[in-house]
């Protein structure tokens, strides 16, 4: 079975490009050119050089000894938190800014939830001297204030999305509307493996560096390229897709995607898309979407702004439907506890998004000494006040 996109832009039943005609020329231009641009030697050279000297890659694969001891198995953390700007998001924005340059675009727009993607976009725009406009839900602007300040410092304009739930879904709507109104000179840097084809595939390819490095690093450390388990959290699904990418066709590797259960899957305040969603179309692709019986998209909830999204990328929907990956969910409280635990055991403060992946360790049973790789997608600096408030520190 293929887990990759076909020539029509689909992963099994999922994917496609459900966009109004106004966006068609832009999306079509990308579709026609993304693979050829990405395979140009000059593009590859600049991409890899920036990842190395600017982002600081390869990110370390760290053997977390005290965490391993606690769970009685071998746990590695893929340290995307050590990237410049503090999360995996920059792998994608570096790739897309180089692409935008080659498409002759002058203005960049983006949506952001936690602010990590907004910061990563503002960063590459500063690097390349391009105008940057970031849409962010008004609620998220409140809860991720440090990232708003970082974007502004680097010269980006941050526009609050005040419609709907005022979070990531609404910021994405606003960014798409901006693109409709500015079709010629603007490139939309989507922050996850969502959106119309070719975005999910393009973003997955840029993020696939995570699993490419992991395999080489594991080989060097253990002699084997494959671990037993790979875990990552899923908002739209980009760090997970990057972490899974080169393991998709390795049947001996179990893939676990961790969604945000919010206050509990049954609580009505949750973002556990595969459990609570149905097939539907959101933001230009057919996937799994949290929605009412009438097809209205529901407002999700998670303590983590980066996971507060009512859909998942179409490739994830396909991995879920084909059972290639297992989709599980973790509540706010479980994630917060796991974040505190990592800080105390390893001296690493994770982003609350990443804490969701860490929390799933508690629910796993290991047969003897198995090897687990967890994608530590980001660092927790942006979340300090949420951690402080939660634990009364």
């Amino acid at each position: 079975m293929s887990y990759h996109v076909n020539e029509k832009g689909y992963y099994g039943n999922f994917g496609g490009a459900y966009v109004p005609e106004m966006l068609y020329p832009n999306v079509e231009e990308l579709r026609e050119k993304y693979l050829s641009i990405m395979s140009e030697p000059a593009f590859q050279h600049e991409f890899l050089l920036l990842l190395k000297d600017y982002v600081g890659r390869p990110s370390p694969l760290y053997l977390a000894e005290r965490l391993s001891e606690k769970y009685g198995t071998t746990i590695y953390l893929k340290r995307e938190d050590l990237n410049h700007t503090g999360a995996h998001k920059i792998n994608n924005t570096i790739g897309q800014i180089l692409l935008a340059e080659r498409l002759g675009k002058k203005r960049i727009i983006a949506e952001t939830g936690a602010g990590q993607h907004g910061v990563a976009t503002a960063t590459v725009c500063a690097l390349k001297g391009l105008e940057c406009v970031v849409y962010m839900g008004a609620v998220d602007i409140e809860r991720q204030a440090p990232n708003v300040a970082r974007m502004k410092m680097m010269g980006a304009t941050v526009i609050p999305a005040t419609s709907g739930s005022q979070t990531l879904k609404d910021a994405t709507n606003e960014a798409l509307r901006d693109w409709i109104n500015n079709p010629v000179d603007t490139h939309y840097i989507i922050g996850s493996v969502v959106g119309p084809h070719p975005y999910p595939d393009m973003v997955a390819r840029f993020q696939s560096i995570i699993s490419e490095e992991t395999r080489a690093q594991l080989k060097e450390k253990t002699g084997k390229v494959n671990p037993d388990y790979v875990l990552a959290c899923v908002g739209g699904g980009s760090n997970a897709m990057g972490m899974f990418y080169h393991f998709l066709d390795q049947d001996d590797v179990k893939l676990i995607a961790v969604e945000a259960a919010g206050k509990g899957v049954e609580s009505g305040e949750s973002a556990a898309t595969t459990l609570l969603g149905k097939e539907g179309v959101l933001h230009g692709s057919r996937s799994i979407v949290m929605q009412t019986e009438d097809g209205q998209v529901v407002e999700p909830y998670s303590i983590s702004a980066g996971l507060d999204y009512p859909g998942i990328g179409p490739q994830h929907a396909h991995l879920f439907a084909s059972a290639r990956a297992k989709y599980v969910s973790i509540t706010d409280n479980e994630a917060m506890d796991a974040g505190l635990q990592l800080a105390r055991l390893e001296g690493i403060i994770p982003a609350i998004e990443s804490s969701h992946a860490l929390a799933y360790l508690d629910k796993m049973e290991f047969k003897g000494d198995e090897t687990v790789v967890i994608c530590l997608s980001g660092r927790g600096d942006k979340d300090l006040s949420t951690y402080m408030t939660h634990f009364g520190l």
Partner: protein
Amino acid sequence: MNRIKQLFEQKRNNVLSIYFTAGYPNIDSTLDIAEALEKAGADFLEIGVPYSDPLADGPVIQNSSQKAIENGMTVKVLFEQLKDLRKRVSIPVLLMGYVNPVLQYGVENFCSKCAEVGVDGVIVPDLPMYEYEELYQDCFIQNQLSNIFLITPTTSEARIRRIDELSNGFIYLLSTSSTTGKNLSVSSQVEDYFSRIKSMELRNPTMIGFGISDNKSFSKASEYANGAIVGSAFVKILAEENYLEKIPEFIGSLKGKEAVSY
């Protein structure tokens, strides 16, 4: 015969279509507004099916959609209301909405319900041509529904030809690439685009929409197409008190003549 075809056979110029959102301002205002629009002289109607994430729409229609959803409007409720459509309205009626609510209702159910209540066509801006052809076209044809495609200033000539082949009703010409509710500013660029389309001599009639708000923009659009579509400017009227009474005057002012009386 499909009412849309019939309309364009009888009327080639200055055709006026009005968009409004079902369930706005009140849950049961849909048919009252439709009836008032016909009496006031609208040539056909587009009834919006509200959606939570209307990404082609500007603030006015976003707001009417959100309000309509809060009022309890759903596809099911709408079809229930439309049972009386043909008792009260004789001009062509289209439903305009986003693809997800249609998918959830079921495309086949949706099409057969449209036929049952006397809806003549459907506009789904985020339903791509490929998916329409592969999955939905048969169902539309079976139920004699027109599927309306959009074209914009950046749609290529080859694609316009393909859309013309697939269309049966009319083609929706966007005045500019924009979300709904911006005022049309007629530059020489826009006129070039309108002229270019006109000179293509398409098989289907064309209607210009997005940004048409008054007599000036309506008349301008009608020079290049068979008529024009007014959305946000009308939906704004619905926020006012006694909106039903204001409809004749609004339509009259669009057409540039004295208000028709009830």
